[in-house]
């Protein structure tokens, strides 16, 4: 029973896997809970355009595979390992979504298959990201944080990818709600611009904070403009693109003109930018 972590005995490995699976369930539940309790997510589940749901599901697989490199259950080495990790996360998230939605009576026996599948597929997206993150986060507690940081220190594209994941994650939480469009209608164009600038300032503050963790003295910094252009501006552009993609997926742009598209993207980009910046801190 006291098989060491390094041992290759089969029971130990299987137990590790089941602990990981339990973490995946917990993570998908914690991360998807706000969305499981959002009516708009139930409704979008049945009226979402089929092709957009297909695209969303196809986007999920490479997203999870890459994400498993950064925060998967184990230090994923091969592509196959990453893909396996991705599908384990999807399975855990789907089971969790079915159980909770069934108890909520949001899905019922006798409902059309299209409705049930749409509702579950939509919830699986945030749930599987949560499952993947939780397996990394919760299991990381054992190792020294210093050690882990070196192992996972991401490259520049990796940093941008993590920012994108953060933006997708927070964006999914709020994109389906009515508040995003309502806010973009309530706010005048100058308020929208102020919000975009506030998003940029806050993102830069986070970027800056990550690069100098806790250090008051700023000697030898890479330069304000270098950091600002390479991380803040690029990150915010990614956030805007992801926001527009999510709003399009949820059918918020039907019959809309350009100003509406940009306004809603900036409003959704505000939480997205916080999410993107926070992702670099947390992941």
């Amino acid at each position, binding site marked *: 029973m006291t098989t060491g972590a390094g041992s290759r005995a089969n029971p130990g490995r299987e137990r590790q896997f089941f602990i990981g699976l339990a973490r995946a369930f917990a993570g998908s539940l914690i991360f998807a809970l706000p969305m499981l309790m959002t009516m708009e997510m139930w409704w979008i589940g049945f009226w979402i355009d089929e092709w957009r749901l297909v695209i969303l599901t196809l986007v999920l697989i490479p997203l999870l595979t890459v994400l498993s490199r950064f925060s998967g259950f184990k230090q994923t080495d091969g592509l196959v390992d990453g893909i396996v990790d991705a599908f384990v996360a999807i399975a855990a998230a789907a089971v969790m979504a079915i159980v909770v939605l069934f108890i909520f009576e949001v899905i019922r026996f006798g409902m059309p298959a299209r409705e049930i599948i749409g509702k579950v597929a939509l919830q699986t997206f945030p749930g599987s990201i949560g499952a993947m993150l939780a397996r990394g986060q919760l299991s990381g507690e054992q190792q020294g944080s210093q050690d882990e940081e070196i192992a996972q220190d991401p490259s520049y594209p990796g940093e941008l990818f993590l920012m994108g994941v953060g933006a997708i994650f927070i964006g999914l939480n709020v994109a389906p709600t009515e508040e995003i469009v309502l806010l973009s209608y309530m706010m005048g164009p100058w308020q929208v611009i102020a919000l975009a600038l506030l998003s940029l300032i806050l993102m830069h503050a986070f970027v800056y904070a990550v690069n100098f963790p806790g250090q008051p003295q700023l000697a030898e910094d890479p330069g304000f403009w270098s950091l600002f252009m390479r991380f803040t501006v690029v990150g*915010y552009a990614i956030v805007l693109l992801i926001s527009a993609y999510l709003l399009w997926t949820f059918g918020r742009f039907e019959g809309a003109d350009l100003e509406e598209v940009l306004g809603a993207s900036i409003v959704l980009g505000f939480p997205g930018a916080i999410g993107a910046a926070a992702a670099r801190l947390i992941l």
Partner: protein
Amino acid sequence: MNAPTKSPPRKSESSRQIHPGSTTSKWEWVAAACGLLLVLGTLGYIVYYALTTEAKIPDITAEAIRTEPTRGGHVVQFRARNHSSTTAAGLQITGELRQGSSVVERSEITLDYLPPFSEREGGLIFQEDPARYELRIAPKAYREP
């Protein structure tokens, strides 16, 4: 990007720090330029929009686009369009089948939002055949969002 110029003391301080100067690859600057273009373009358009359009009273039209008989009645699909830069919330659209000055049948629907210069579609269902009467579809009321 394993910078050889990285000074030893900094290495130990923070493994996260990004190395200045030589280590920034060409592609990072390309990405930065694309991002800058996108952000400036977005902000620029909103500023342009703010300067060129003035908020006025909503100017809304509604028109039937097709009629089809179904089991539940005759469905008249309509399209509502906002020609102004003001959003109408809770927009009421009414359809009437008229014969002379008397209304034979009425139907009403609320659109949650009709944003500036946008259009939304919906349907009104009549038991009578709209082809036999005069059909009038019109916006009736809205509120500020």
